[in-house]
């Protein structure tokens, strides 16, 4: 059984104008810019589903270099199927991995669900 996402609400920092909603299918940008990035390499280019909206937070890619991190960026939790993230994954199809991804790392995923 897949974990239930519908019931999860977030009451952290508000995220006005968020582009994606819970349940939306997204793709993590497959780009490799230099600098301080909180998007793990292994998830770049992978496709998942928005699990919850965490709020808006100062941009760590700016904070890391002494700037104020403004404007804040909307942070999401994205859920991925392990079998999609790791083609050689040894475990059942329903295992998942989730992580936090800032909005500017996301793009809509129009294709078939992975």
């Amino acid at each position, binding site marked *: 059984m897949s974990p239930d996402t519908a019931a999860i*609400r977030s009451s*952290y920092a508000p995220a006005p104008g968020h582009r994606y909603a819970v349940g939306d299918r997204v793709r993590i940008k497959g780009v490799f810019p230099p600098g301080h990035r909180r998007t*793990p390499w292994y998830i770049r280019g992978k496709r998942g589903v928005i699990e919850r909206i965490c709020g808006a937070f100062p941009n760590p890619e700016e904070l890391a270099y002494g700037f104020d991190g403004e404007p804040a960026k909307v942070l999401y939790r994205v859920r991925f199927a392990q079998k999609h993230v790791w083609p050689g994954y040894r475990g059942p199809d329903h295992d998942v991995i989730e992580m936090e991804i800032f909005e500017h790392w996301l793009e809509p995923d129009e294709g078939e669900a992975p």
Partner: protein
Amino acid sequence: MSGPFDFYAKRPHDHGHEHDHDDHKPESEAEGPPSEFEILSRAMQELLEAKGVVTADQIRRRIELFEEDFPYRGGRVVARAWTDPAFKRRLLEDGRSACAEAGIELEAERLIAVENTPDVHNLIVCTLCSCYPRALLGMPPTWYKSRNYRSRVVFEPRAVLREFGTLLPDHVTVRVHDSNADMRYVVVPMRPKGTENWSEERLAGILTRDTLVGVTVPQVPGKE
């Protein structure tokens, strides 16, 4: 602590050289000269003290809290969630405000509590560094910070769980959380059978650090 949880601490080093560490060497000799960051931190503290911003005793007290109180907070919070369903719901909705309600100030930390069920087992890691809910669980254990745990638990969580003595049937979904940005995580384990009449304090006793990270599940003593 001895037992299966030392597995990662005892793994060979991965910093590019082969040698035996002398476990009996006194700490003072093993430390070597202070690093650049230690010197920076010391200088910062001395300046803050000189300017009257903080006192040495306040800093000492803070370190003491990290070691003496923080590691037990997570168990207390989850024990309360086990005995109070309304509190559990609030904890799952907003970890930080539920902790505040329980008298635990998490300061800047945003906490996401994730619940284990008969169908889902949750497991926490930070692959990028070693983000950890310090205000709730104290300082992270050595294995949590190890490259071995951080790199393997994302792609072979079931193998890593097995090494911790945790065997999960295939019908249970393993849900790994990479704590890679602003959120911190705590697992709300399933309350074991046989604890129905236990007090919160007694329940907190089986909610060990490792159960709240998700590498193991709470055990009722004598029933293993």
